[in-house]
């Protein structure tokens, strides 16, 4: 029964606003102390974590994917790509919004951090859509949901972290996200078309674009194609491991920026500063989660959950849906990274026991995280879009809460057809 205390402490510290990394760590420390009653054991465990949670070759992909995102956005590549996508789609109603989805998807293939995508796409797309008279709800919603594509489309730091926490192949996870990402993109476009069909006033027609303009703008996006080739091509052809893809991606994102004279010294420094700041934050959370994880191991809670669930004799899909629903509720109030880590510690042994595929569950987890990032009241992507795009928060939430249907549809589809996730990694060659 005393196993409940660490959870109560966790909740209290959360509520008081103690940084989540520290809350997780403290709850873990109290738990370990309760179970072992040995201060020396506790201190040694914590001490070892400070090195082990950080010193990992696989995890070095995290800072490098983040750096790639920052360099891609500060190098002006995103602007070029956005313009090219616009020129191809803007002649249909809602076309500017659809072009934004394309741009988000392509930027997602050059960036490993969705918040970088959210902020750069807000800065580029929102002023343009505003100028054309698009409604703020539609604008904010499209950019928010579009930015979540970044998580599914490789590179993606979420899959690196999931892979390391569950001992699953990061390479396979990254590829597994591609088709669900495309499916989500299509659903999102369908939702936009439906939206502008019912409320045409939200998406006025844009001025027509000539063919020469289209070709001209498309020609300028070759650096983007190069970067996408580096990520997708190398991963799929297997010329490099995920960590190397991260290194090559960041390297060439910087190099094209320098060659095209788009990347200034200040821009580069900002990109590096942003990278180390976010990395430090992520690894602090990982340290806290590792400590909490040892408490979980010592407590035997995951096994108890498995036993309890098996005793209930439920259909495994009932369990899966219960996991997703409860995650969704928690994610309304919590940040996604610590919540995912916490959830994995409890649910991962259970779902593998129930026979679900770990790669597939990784993609499901990613989709849950995406929903958490755009759903009120705590949706980080929506905060960023609202701030960077200067749109009222409630308007962005309104749009995101409608277009989130596209994410839900994707989730349902890949629960019915797991092959959507598993096919591409299985063909890898």
């Amino acid at each position: 029964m005393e196993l409940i205390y660490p959870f109560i402490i966790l909740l209290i510290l959360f509520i008081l606003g103690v940084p989540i990394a520290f809350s997780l760590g403290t709850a873990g420390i109290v738990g370990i102390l309760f179970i072992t009653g040995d201060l020396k054991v506790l201190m040694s465990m914590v001490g070892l974590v400070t090195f082990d949670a950080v010193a990992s070759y696989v995890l070095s992909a995290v800072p490098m994917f983040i750096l790639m995102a920052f360099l891609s956005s500060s190098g002006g590549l995103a602007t070029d790509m956005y313009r090219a996508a616009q020129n191809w789609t803007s002649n249909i109603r809602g076309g500017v919004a659809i072009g934004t989805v394309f741009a988000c998807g392509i930027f997602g293939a050059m960036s490993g951090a969705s918040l970088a995508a959210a902020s750069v796409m807000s800065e580029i797309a929102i002023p343009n859509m505003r100028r054309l008279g698009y409604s703020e709800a539609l604008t904010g919603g499209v950019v928010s949901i579009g930015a979540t594509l970044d998580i599914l489309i490789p590179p993606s730091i979420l899959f690196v972290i999931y892979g390391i926490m569950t001992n699953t192949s990061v390479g396979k996870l990254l590829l597994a996200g591609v088709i669900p990402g495309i499916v989500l993109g299509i659903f999102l476009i369908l939702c936009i078309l439906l939206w502008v069909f019912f409320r045409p006033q939200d998406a006025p027609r844009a001025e027509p674009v000539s063919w020469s303009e289209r070709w001209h703008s498309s020609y300028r996006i070759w650096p983007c194609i190069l970067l996408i080739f580096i990520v997708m091509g190398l991963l799929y052809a297997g010329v490099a491991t995920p960590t190397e893809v991260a290194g090559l991606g960041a390297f060439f994102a910087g190099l094209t920026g320098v060659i095209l004279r788009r990347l200034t010294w200040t821009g580069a420094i900002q990109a590096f500063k942003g990278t180390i700041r976010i990395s430090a934050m992520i690894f602090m959370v990982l340290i806290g989660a590792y400590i909490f994880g040892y408490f979980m191991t010592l407590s035997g809670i995951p096994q108890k959950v498995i036993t309890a669930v098996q005793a209930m004799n439920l259909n495994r899909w009932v369990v899966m849906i219960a996991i997703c629903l409860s995650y969704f509720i928690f994610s309304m109030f919590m940040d996604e990274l610590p919540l995912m880590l916490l959830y994995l510690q409890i649910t991962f042994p259970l779902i593998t026991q129930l026979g679900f595929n770990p790669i597939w569950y990784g993609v499901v987890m990613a989709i849950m995280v995406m929903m958490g990032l755009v759903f009120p009241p705590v949706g980080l992507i929506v905060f960023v879009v609202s701030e960077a795009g200067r749109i009222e928060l409630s308007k962005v939430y309104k749009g995101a809460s409608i277009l989130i249907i596209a994410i839900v549809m994707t989730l349902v589809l890949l629960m019915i057809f797991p092959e959507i996730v598993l096919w591409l990694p299985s063909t890898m060659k």
Partner: protein
Amino acid sequence: PQSSKTFSLKFASWVPQHDTMNYAPNLWIKEVEQRTGGRVKVTPYYGESLGKVANSLDMLKTGICDLALMPTGVLSKHFRVLDVLALPGLIPDRVIGTEVMYVLLQKGLLEKEFTGYVPIVLQCHDPFYLNFTKKKVTNLEEIKGLKIRFPSVTTKSALEALGATPVSIPPPELFNAINTGILDGTCASPGYLVLSKLYEIMKYTLWGYPISSGANIVLMSRKTWEALPPDVQLVMEELNKNAKSNYLEAGKRQDEDSIKQIKAAGVETYHLSPEELKKWQRLTQPVIDQWISDMQAAGLPGKEAFETAKGLVEKHK
């Protein structure tokens, strides 16, 4: 009169519960509990769930766990004499490898690396062979420049001596790296080929030339040991003897099973010609000589360890 004091111990194992390496330890745990009438309870934690495998010794020292299963290859900086198993072309199978360790133990050559610990069971695994995906390597010309993943620095030198290009790949990415052609091959034991499903994509496996071997040993921290009453220690000592044969039995089952599965999957298994094998042995001899001289320089019984191993191998021929 037995005291009624109970002892609750923690066993950290870096491999999954049903791995062959856990067979003997799991049995040991069960029997310790039975024979002590429940006075000693050992809780196992599998799959690095109490800490990273590289920290196994720190975990024992600090009391995070009382017993640990650890690979000598990963901890070769500490188990320097036991690293004799990793020398190229030396240990042909797990029976001899295990024998070698027990003889080294008996001769007192492991004293230094076992200080502070009590050995429970020493288990040499099946040898690492070379496995290839792209071409069947029958001579030194054909191995030249092939990218091959190595398990430890000793094997890295051996691969270099043979003219291959040793490559580091994190374990969870190994399957992909082979499947997609980042690597041309890898050092892996037959058992590992099956466990990791690598045999599904491997084309050729070169048997008869063990590029390396290694062990998974279970140690108890001496502090824990000394806190146990003599009658419990007696029970454990007896069970330690059984543990060795339990392991070899489980190992035999695994060997038979892996050979069957690898062949059924259509992997071509083959041997080097005797003349070619001699050439390979000659090329990797400097790695062995270097190892011995490094050991001697550090004041460690490298020469005795090697000769003990060599002698046992010859004896079994």
